[in-house]
């Protein structure tokens, strides 16, 4: 399934997986599409349905759109849009700083009061710059979190959790296809699984797929599954 390089391709592939009951693949691809187009209603609807079905398969009583976090990324803007907005605000803030710099150099015996419009404009530019800085920090934090603990989706039908040594954890329920987790360290074909900021065990690396690599997802039915997974997700 190469070439999922835009939201439409991800959405179409995810919807096809959803129609065929491949919940893990559906959630993965639709999450990828939602990252690019967080306000797209069709993406949000199908993602909501997929996550509701995942909740049902977990044994939870779920309705469409009632699953926590279902139906999108929870953000109004994609990361690209967010970065563009942050850049714009930072540019405005830079202009305000330049103005401030220019005025800070003036030493005169004949001080003239600053016009109200100019004062308001300068304050607006300051606020824009601070907002842009905060937005950039927020986006950097989110990107860093996804770098350190990448969001992933369980793509295998069942992913039993084990200890770091590979020994099974009898009390830990297996994860089901479509469940969203975060990954941490990797070792010997296992990856540390985190839920809600807490490590819950280790699972097969081949059983999960990072959302940021959704565009390179290879269907299990594909002949090149093994090589592709090892090469892209591992």
């Amino acid at each position, binding site marked *: 399934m190469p070439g999922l*390089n*835009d*939201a*439409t391709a991800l959405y*179409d592939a995810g*919807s*096809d997986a959803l*129609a*065929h*009951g*491949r919940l893990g693949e559906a959630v993965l691809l639709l999450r*990828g599409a939602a*990252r*690019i187009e967080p306000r*797209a209603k*069709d993406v949000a609807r*199908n993602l*909501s*349905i997929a996550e*509701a*079905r995942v909740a*049902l398969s977990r*044994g939870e009583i779920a*309705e469409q759109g009632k699953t926590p976090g279902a139906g999108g990324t929870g953000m109004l803007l*994609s*990361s*690209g*849009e967010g*970065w*563009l907005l942050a*850049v714009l605000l*930072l*540019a405005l*803030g*830079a202009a305000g*700083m330049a103005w*401030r*710099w220019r*005025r*800070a*150099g003036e*030493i*005169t*015996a004949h001080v003239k009061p600053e016009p109200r419009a100019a004062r308001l404009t300068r304050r607006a530019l300051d606020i824009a710059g601070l907002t*842009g*800085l905060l937005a*950039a920090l927020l*986006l*950097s934090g*989110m*990107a860093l979190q*996804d770098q350190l603990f990448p969001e992933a989706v369980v793509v295998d039908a*069942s992913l039993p959790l084990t200890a770091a040594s590979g*020994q099974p954890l*009898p009390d830990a*329920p*297996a994860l089901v296809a479509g469940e969203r987790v975060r990954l941490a360290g990797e070792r010997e074909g296992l990856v540390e699984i985190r839920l809600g900021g807490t490590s819950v065990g280790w699972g097969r690396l081949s059983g999960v797929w990072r*959302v940021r*690599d959704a*565009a390179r997802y290879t269907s299990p039915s594909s002949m090149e599954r093994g090589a592709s997974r090892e090469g892209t997700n591992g």
Partner: protein
Amino acid sequence: MIGSRAAATRTLLIASLLSFGLVPCAGATLIRTVVAVDRPVVQRGEPVIVSVTIEQYGFSSATVEEPRPAGMAIERAGTSQNLVIAAGTVVRTDVTLFRVTAMLPGKYTIPPFKVELDGKRTETRPVTFEVVASLPPGAGGGEPGGQSEGEDRSALFARFVVDRRHVTWNEQIVAHIQVLSRTPLEDMPAWEAPEATGFWGEPLGEPRHDRVTIDGRAYDRYERIVAFFPTRPGRLTLGPARARVHVVRHHEPTFDPLGGLLMSAPTEVVELPLEAAPVDIAVDPLPAGAPPEFQGAVGTLSLAVRVDRPRVRVGEPLTVSTAVRGDGNLASATDPRIVTIPDCPSYPAGARTDLDRSGGRLRGSRRRDIAFIPDQPGSLLVLPIAFAWFDPEAGRYRVQRSDTIVVRVDPAKEGSVAAAGVAQTAVGVPAAPRAANAPSPRIRARGNAEPSLHGWPSGFPLLSGLLSLAGYAGFGMAASARRRAAKDPRKRREALLREAAGDLARAAASPGEPRAAERAEAALRDAAGIRFGIDPEGRSRRDLLDRLRAAEVAGAEIEAIAESLQRLEQSAFAPGGSGDAKAALESAATIARRWSDECRA
């Protein structure tokens, strides 16, 4: 050495089980303690065997401390352990046997045994037994004991010993059918099934042979143990029990006139029938107030429930197993009912009854497997499974209920038969693919040739963002530096002098402007104030000059200032652009420029 090796083996076994996660590593929990005597009535000098059974969840070893009552000798006769691991739980059973001997006839009560398990102490209940003074009357049957007149009738006899004579319906009675002989028999007795109308019997183990002392005499004891369960209330009779034994009979030497030439057999093996007297048993009916779940089980029982998996697909079997175990008539027990929500087809998947006949009582387990086939995804609830039984030891009914078990039911595999019925069990109808829709404008991540799924910017957003950030930070730092610089008095004075010199230079360059001389005078006064650190605001020329003198400004400088101010004052009334006015302005500008240069230097 053997003990340490056994401990090491047990430690290794426990560690292995724990490492494989087969059992929970929780502390021991006492299930129950049971104390029992092997017979309620013994002859004088005959020991009674007391068994103390401790059941617990876990691996811990229990210690039993025997009491020291007066008039009885209690000695430890042996111990045994049994481990059962099933459904993730470990049940350990420790049995400790004590041999209790009372020499005088009478009724005896053995005080409670003290039990300690994982630091927790408990006690058993007291038990009683009776010692009778004499042997039973000749119990031989048929050919009176196989013994001739004059023979000691207590040298060979059979007897029927039961552990209790008053029981509840279906309560277990352990009967010992014994043949006691002062001399060893040629072989084990041939037992006949005892008459037990109204009982269901189950032999326990193989016939046994040991030696006992009764009333000061040593006997060979041949014993067969049978568990009986009364099937109806009332006064019932167990026995008589019959056995045939082979004994060696010694003959007196016959008269031999030939002085021993005729051989005669001094001994021969004869078969003798023996009969043990019957025992009356009082059987009480079950008391009223049975719970609705009660279906006739009597004994000391417990229920275990397990499912073979926590998650199942639609159309695949989920096996729910119930196991009833303990002491009692498990063969006649009825399996508990299993109800699921939602209701789904179920089929018997197996049933097995295991009876343990090796111990002193009939124990065992009864297991039944039911396979449920869920037909819709979601959750399958196995409702609490209840099992009720009558506990004759406690004299009351007991009910045990399992927890509700939640099993996740996943959708059937694609292409399976079960999938056909649930393929579109959707929570809503998905939106159609976009390829089938008319293209609609959408907000895209602009600036990227390929939208980024990771959170970092690239391309134009990255470059412009870095530039903006650099500009923001750079201008901010520069502005801060300039603000700090503006607060430096020396630099501030320099800047103000430069500004005043500039104003005077501009005035000198355009002397025709109205009020040029007046503005230049004010600028020169301000410059003098800045240069020499005095406040010229509102002061007259004389006052200003006095202040300059007080500030120890050089006299020539004061003279130059005074002259310049005077010329400016005079030129204020001269026509604009006249030579005097221009000279006055240039003079003032020269003074201010000199001050500015001095200050910069």
